[in-house]
């Protein structure tokens, strides 16, 4: 407790709104921190995701060596308790760059977890899935989601649940590239595939192809729509090597919607950005996104509303070191959070629009003088929260005013 209090003092908080949130971390009792297995945690163990379940309990997933670890908090991150265990048998768990375990909640309080299990060859992996249908007490033995079992890329898992409770899992897949290579043909990038579960994760239908020619190493953003479909946005490789973003609809029956170009920065490069987009919709159904580019037209992190054939209300997010932005929407209120390094500390910053993305105000939420994960923006009953897993302040939850 004493050391927890001391580390929380290091959390810089700016603005009266956030002091109360930061100080509340002094009561944050993470009993696991004191009996951690090693004195120096691995950077990969910071890689984490979080979600609210329908009752408002917050669920976080990360990894600890060869184990996927799920924690729950009933008090908005002040205290966490361990659920699970998820995988009784340890296995490799990807949490590098833009890859990390994911968690989603079903309408009946089901907790769904995915991760990428790296295989022995570089860049290969399997998409793994486990669920809890008893409120996190027990998790099912992990299964591999895809039927394709080649030792190739199946990585960068993304998961969401649609309004009917169907579970969608999408991932980056290199089976088409492998087939092309075997035939001596060229193939741009990788592909996006997905699978759907109609029975709360007991089984999956797939592997459905969403689109050819995705970039190889960026997270995929998923957005469930009112009609039961799920929109996916990812970094694509448009010919010849333009790494701008694409968007397409995944239908529950496995039909893929038309692939459309979503961003237009003309980033022509063969590169591994490890810097995927985020996507959300407002009450009017308009799509909003944040993404990173080093294109010839612009370079940095950007926000825009997406429309056919272009973007609107585009603006730069943060200063020159801004990275890993996430966004969430409630009605017409749009929130964007990101981090930027100032030479000494990583600062967690946010901008908020009350009018669907036209006017914004920006503020700083926190800062840390050590390693930190990408921030995650969550929404619950009209309020926004940033989940930020940092070495100094694990599993922080910072509310936006």
């Amino acid at each position: 407790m004493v050391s927890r209090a001391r580390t929380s003092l290091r959390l810089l908080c700016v603005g009266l709104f956030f002091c109360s949130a930061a100080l509340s971390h002094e009561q944050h009792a993470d009993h696991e921190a004191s009996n951690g297995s090693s004195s120096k945690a691995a950077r990969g163990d910071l890689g984490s995701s979080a979600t609210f379940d329908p009752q408002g309990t917050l669920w976080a997933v990360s990894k600890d060596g060869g184990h996927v670890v799920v924690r729950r908090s009933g008090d908005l991150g002040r205290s966490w308790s361990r659920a699970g265990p998820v995988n009784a048998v340890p296995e490799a768990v990807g949490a590098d760059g833009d890859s990390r375990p994911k968690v989603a909640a079903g309408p009946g309080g089901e907790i769904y977890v995915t991760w990428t299990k790296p295989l022995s060859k570089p860049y290969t992996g399997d998409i793994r899935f486990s669920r809890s249908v008893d409120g996190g007490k027990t998790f099912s033995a992990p299964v591999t989601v895809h039927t394709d079992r080649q030792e190739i890329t199946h990585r960068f898992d993304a998961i969401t649940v649609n309004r009917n409770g169907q579970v969608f899992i999408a991932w980056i897949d290199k089976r088409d590239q492998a087939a092309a290579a075997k035939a001596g043909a060229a193939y741009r990038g990788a592909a996006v595939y997905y699978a759907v579960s109609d029975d709360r994760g007991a089984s999956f239908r797939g592997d459905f192809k969403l689109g050819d020619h995705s970039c190889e190493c960026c997270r995929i953003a998923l957005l469930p729509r009112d009609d039961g479909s799920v929109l996916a946005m990812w970094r694509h490789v448009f010919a010849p090597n333009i790494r701008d973003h694409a968007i397409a609809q995944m239908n529950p029956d496995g039909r893929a919607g038309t692939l459309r170009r979503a961003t237009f920065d003309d980033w022509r490069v063969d590169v591994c950005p490890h810097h995927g987009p985020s996507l959300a919709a407002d009450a009017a159904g308009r799509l909003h996104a944040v993404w990173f580019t080093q294109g010839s037209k612009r370079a940095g992190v950007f926000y825009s509303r997406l429309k056919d054939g272009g973007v609107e209300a585009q603006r730069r997010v943060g200063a020159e070191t801004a990275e890993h932005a996430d966004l969430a929407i409630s009605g017409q209120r749009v929130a964007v959070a990101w981090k930027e390094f100032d030479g000494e500390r990583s600062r967690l910053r946010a901008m908020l629009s009350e009018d669907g993305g036209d006017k914004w105000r920006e503020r700083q939420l926190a800062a840390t003088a050590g390693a930190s994960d990408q921030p995650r923006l969550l929404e619950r009953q009209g309020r926004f929260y940033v989940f930020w897993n940092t070495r100094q302040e694990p599993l922080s939850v910072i509310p936006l005013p």
Partner: protein
Amino acid sequence: MIRVFSRVAAFGFALMFTAFALPAAAAASTYELRPFDARSLNAIREARAGRPFVLAFWSIYCEPCREEMGQWRSIQRKYPDVPILLVSTDPPEERVTVARFLSQYNPGRVETWAFADDFAERVRFAVDRTWRGELPRTYLFDAGHRPEARSGRLDRRWIENWLARQSAIPRR
């Protein structure tokens, strides 16, 4: 006087590095990984004052980086006068995998370094505050240590044109 001393010390340091590095790289089966942190680039520049070098960042998770390993080997053979420093940005806990990767894909007689600071943003900022971590990322430092930077798969024409220019500069 202090400046002269530090130059001499830096040169001695560089010699020491070379003495350690060459046998390891020549064997091509084991690569020593020197720790790279927020102070390293300054130290490298000091040790190489007045001389050009190539600084290339990569990761075991980056596919275009793997394809570059063989290119570095052939570039180094063609332009042996300009040192090539490969820096792995992987987290410190991946050192064993990084070393295995280097042995497997064999970049040849290059210097090999690895991020030694868990706080990767701090290391990147010290190199170039506009670099957001995309890989591969290559910096060409001329004799005056003016850097040229590019992200993405190595552009052979870009680097070879540059190397040809550096090699044309008489060595001290």
